[in-house]
């Protein structure tokens, strides 16, 4: 370097990291012969000390893991310690009894995550053409597991088509700026339980919030979630928090339950429309100080 001070070299030199190397002599010469280097070197020790004090002060601030993070971490570890309860949507056979898992493979975990997406989509598709659109959107580019999942709900889909409620699947590129789809499936989701919940009623003509209104039947929305289901501004803030936290955009939102607690089950998709993450948000999603109120999340890959 011929002009100015090379801070990295000066920092290494001052820390003694160049001792015994030819570079140490070079830096020493620069300090001896160049006013800018001499000035920086003279000020360096005090400046570094001030930085250390600032950093130590930062470290002295107490930091406690927030309760919502503790909750989702606990749920994730509980999931890791349990066998999948039902895997019918992945074609892995009928349900296995609960109990402790003795071996975990990433492939199985991945299939279960994908089955989770399938469960959310299936919970929607079972009750109207609106859901059919969602299913097509979510799984339009998915793999074998997605095909299996799609097959698992095919009767409901055919029924919806017969009613004229279905819509053609949008290609992934067209989905990039699509608004999210909303539903209230009544499902009680578990990390390891991918079965759709009990039947719900859903207005198949509903455009959801896509057109600025929602026809979700309020009786199907758990009361603690009605702040979000009845106020487009509130749900927008919530979903922006989720998208900001994880990237992508929400494609599907189910006003449902997670481990018996009211929760939004949100499917995030990438720019191509492929789901890459499921997020479970609590009723306080979007409120000040609560962020996305995430209760659980898992990648889908």
């Amino acid at each position: 370097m011929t002009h100015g001070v090379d801070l990295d070299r000066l920092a290494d030199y001052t820390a003694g990291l160049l001792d015994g190397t030819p570079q140490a002599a070079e830096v020493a010469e620069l300090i001896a012969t160049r006013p800018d280097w001499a000035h920086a070197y003279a000020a360096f020790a005090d400046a570094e000390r001030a930085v250390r004090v600032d950093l130590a002060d930062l470290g002295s601030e107490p930091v406690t893991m927030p309760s919502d993070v503790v909750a989702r971490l606990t749920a994730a570890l509980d999931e890791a310690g349990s066998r999948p309860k039902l895997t019918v949507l992945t074609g892995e056979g009928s349900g296995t009894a609960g109990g402790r898992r003795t071996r975990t493979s990433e492939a199985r975990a991945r299939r279960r995550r994908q089955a989770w997406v399938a469960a959310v989509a299936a919970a929607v598709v079972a009750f109207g053409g609106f859901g059919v659109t969602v299913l097509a959107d979510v799984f339009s580019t998915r793999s074998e597991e997605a095909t299996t999942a799609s097959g698992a709900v095919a009767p409901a889909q055919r029924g919806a088509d017969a009613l004229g409620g279905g819509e053609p699947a949008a290609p992934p590129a067209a989905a990039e700026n699509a608004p999210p789809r909303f539903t209230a499936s009544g499902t009680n989701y578990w990390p390891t339980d991918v079965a759709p919940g009990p039947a719900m009623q859903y207005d198949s003509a509903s455009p959801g919030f896509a057109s600025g209104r929602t026809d979700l039947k309020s009786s199907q929305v758990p009361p603690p979630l009605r702040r979000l289901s009845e106020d487009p501004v509130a749900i927008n803030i919530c979903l922006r928090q989720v998208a900001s936290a994880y990237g992508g955009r929400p494609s599907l939102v189910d006003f449902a339950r997670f481990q018996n607690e009211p929760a939004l089950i949100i499917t995030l998709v990438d720019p191509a429309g492929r789901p890459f993450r499921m997020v479970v948000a609590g009723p306080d999603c979007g409120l000040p100080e609560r962020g996305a109120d995430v209760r659980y999340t898992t990648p889908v890959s």
Partner: protein
Amino acid sequence: MRADAEDSDEELLRAHTAGDPDAFAEIVRRHRDRLWAVALRTLGDREDAADAVQDALLSAYRSAGRFRGDSAVTTWLHRIVVNACLDRVRRRQARPTVPLPETWAVPAAPAPDRDVALDVRSALAQLSADQRAALVLVDIHGYGVSEAAEILGVAEGTVKSRCARGRAKLAVMLGYLRVPPGHQPGNPASGGRVPSGSLPGDSTEDVS
């Protein structure tokens, strides 16, 4: 064998691998705040930190049987968490957020009053992830260089270099050190505490 709050971390980890359903939760309860603080300060983002800690502890849960006891359990956990953080930094750089439709517009909240701690956090966020992780461990959380090197999986000299270079950049950004125009990181004309923009010479070629 059942987990006991008085058991050492090593005993709890052995109990976990032997099938004790409560042992790992006790380890997490003991260390979660410190692991959370490291993740939060390394990533600078609450949700990313939550993801990283969750991914890391799930990984630790599953791989506990491979823990050989060469280091303390807490060092092992920190290593997994820090690696998860650095991995997230790399993935975050590879996946941009999709802009939301215009109809989602939400008024921005007013900016809170700035203070020194906020300035330090903002300045830290402008360092390379490797330098930031080293400073978080050594200067913020008080780990020794040797333990930080073990956590980061690099030589002690590398940790020293990352810390020294990181401190030098912070010194400039925070206004403690002035360098001639053309070589001052960030905004040379501002004289402010935290200029914007990336830093030149944010090299990863640390001395080792």
